[in-house]
C-alpha cells in the first residue's frame, strides 16, 4: 500500500492546468507544422503559418494559446493499492482553482446550466477516474474549449448501418461544424458501448497522441480513411478553404448490445491541449 497526500495531487493538477494551456503537446504542434508543408492552397498555408506564430508567441510570452482555457477535464488512472490521504475529488478541484487563478487563465464555468452564474474559479473539474492494478497514479489535464465541444454529436445507429453508417455520421459531423470549431480539428470517435459510454470513449480518444494510430490495424485503417475523406471536404483552416480540415482522428471502441451501434464524435480544435504527470 502506497500513500499519496491529496496536497500533492492539488499541486500537480495546478501545474498541469497552466502547462497545458500555454504549451501545445509536441505531437499536435508537429502535426500542424507537417500539414502546413503539405497544404497546397496558399490562403490555407498562410493561415497555418499564423497558427504556428501564435504558438511561438504564447510560449515566449507565457500566454494561454487560446483565450478559451476550457473546462478542466481531469483523467486519473489510480492504482488500486494507493491510499489517497485527504479528499480525492476536493484535491483535484482545488488544483484547478489554484492553476486557473495563479496562471491567469479564464474562468469559464457556470455553476448551474440554466441559471448560469460563473463559479469564478473554473471549478468544478470534470473528473474521470479509472482504477488500475498497482501503486501508480497518472494524471492528465485536458482543458476543453467549447467552440469545438458544441459541434460534437452522438447517434444511436442501427447495426445494419455498419462501418459505412459510422463513416457517414463522422464526416457529416465535420461538414455541419464547418468553420465553427476552429479547424483544423482533432476528432475523438467512440463506437459501441451504451449511450453514456460512447461519449466517454470519444472524449478519452482525444488523449491519444496524433502520431499514434489505433493498435488494431482494422481501426487504424478506418482512422486513416476518415481523415482522408474529411480532408477532401475543402473546409480548410478556419473554414477559409483548403485541404487541412482535420489533423487526426482517434477511435475508441467498446462491446455493445446486439441491437445497437452507438457512435459519438467529440470535436476538438487545433488547440488540442493535454498535459500529464505520474505521481
Amino acid at each position: 500500500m502506497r500513500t499519496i497526500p491529496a496536497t500533492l495531487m492539488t499541486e500537480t493538477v495546478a501545474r498541469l492546468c497552466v502547462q497545458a494551456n500555454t504549451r501545445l503537446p509536441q505531437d499536435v504542434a508537429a502535426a500542424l507544422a507537417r500539414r502546413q508543408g503539405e497544404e497546397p492552397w496558399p490562403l490555407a498555408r498562410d493561415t497555418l503559418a499564423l497558427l504556428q506564430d501564435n504558438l511561438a508567441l504564447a510560449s515566449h510570452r507565457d500566454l494561454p494559446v487560446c483565450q478559451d482555457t476550457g473546462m478542466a477535464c481531469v483523467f486519473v488512472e489510480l492504482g488500486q493499492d494507493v491510499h489517497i490521504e485527504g479528499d480525492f475529488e476536493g484535491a483535484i478541484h482545488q488544483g484547478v482553482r489554484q492553476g486557473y487563478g495563479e496562471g491567469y487563465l479564464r474562468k469559464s464555468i457556470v455553476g448551474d446550466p440554466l441559471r448560469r452564474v460563473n463559479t469564478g474559479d473554473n471549478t468544478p473539474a470534470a473528473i474521470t477516474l479509472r482504477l488500475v492494478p498497482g501503486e501508480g497514479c497518472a494524471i492528465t489535464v485536458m482543458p476543453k474549449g467549447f467552440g469545438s465541444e458544441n459541434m460534437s454529436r452522438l447517434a444511436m445507429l442501427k447495426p445494419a448501418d455498419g462501418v459505412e453508417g459510422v463513416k457517414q455520421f463522422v464526416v457529416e459531423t465535420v461538414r455541419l461544424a464547418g468553420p465553427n470549431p476552429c479547424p483544423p480539428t482533432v476528432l475523438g470517435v467512440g463506437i459501441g458501448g451504451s449511450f453514456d459510454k460512447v461519449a466517454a470513449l470519444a472524449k478519452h480518444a482525444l488523449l491519444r497522441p496524433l502520431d499514434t494510430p489505433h493498435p488494431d490495424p482494422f481501426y487504424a485503417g478506418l482512422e486513416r480513411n476518415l481523415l482522408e475523406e474529411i480532408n477532401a471536404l475543402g473546409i480548410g483552416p478556419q473554414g477559409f478553404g483548403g485541404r487541412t480540415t482535420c489533423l487526426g482522428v482517434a477511435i475508441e471502441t467498446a462491446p455493445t448490445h446486439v441491437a445497437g451501434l452507438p457512435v459519438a464524435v467529440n470535436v476538438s480544435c487545433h488547440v488540442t491541449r493535454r498535459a500529464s504527470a505520474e505521481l
Partner: protein
Amino acid sequence: MEYRLTTPVTRAELAPLRAGDTVLLSGIVYTARDAAHQRMMELLDRGEDLPFPVEGSALYYVGPTPERPGEIIGSAGPTTSGRMDPYSPRLLDLGQAIMIGKGARNQAVKEAVVRNGAVYLAALGGAGALMAASVRSLEVICWEDLGCEAVRRLEVHDLPLTVVLDAHGGDLYESGPRRYLESLR
C-alpha cells in the same frame, strides 16, 4: 487585397471590401459576448442608450483571459459568432458596422450585413496570443459582474482580420472551400 481601416468606419469605407480580403483594423473596438448582448437588448427594449456610440462601431466577440500584472490584456481570440445571431441584425440596423468573431452566421445576419453595408470579419480562432498582440489599451466600460464577458473598450493597432461576409452578399465560408475544390479539378 489588404485594407487598413480605423474605427468608426463609414459605409463608403467598407464598400470596396470583398470576402477573402485582409483588413488591418485600428482604433476602438468594443468586446461583447452572449451575456452582454442580452443586456444590450434589454437596454434597447427600455428605450435606453447602448453603453458605447454605435454608429460605425466594431464589436469583437471575445472574452479575454485575465491580464497579468503589468500586461494590457491576456489571450484574446474570437468566440463562435453564431451565438450572437439573434442580436446582431438589430445592432446592425442601429449603425454597428463591423462584427468580429469566427464561425458561420445565419441568413438574417447575412441580410442585415447587405442591408446596412456592414461587414463580418474573422479573427483567427484559437490564436489568442497573436490577436492580443494588436491591443494597445483595455478598459472595462460596463457590466463588470460578467467577468470575462464584461464589455471592454479596446484600442487596437493593425488587428489582422479576414473578410467573411461583405456588403455585396459575399461569404468566404462558402466561396473559400468552393474555390479550393474547383482548383483540384
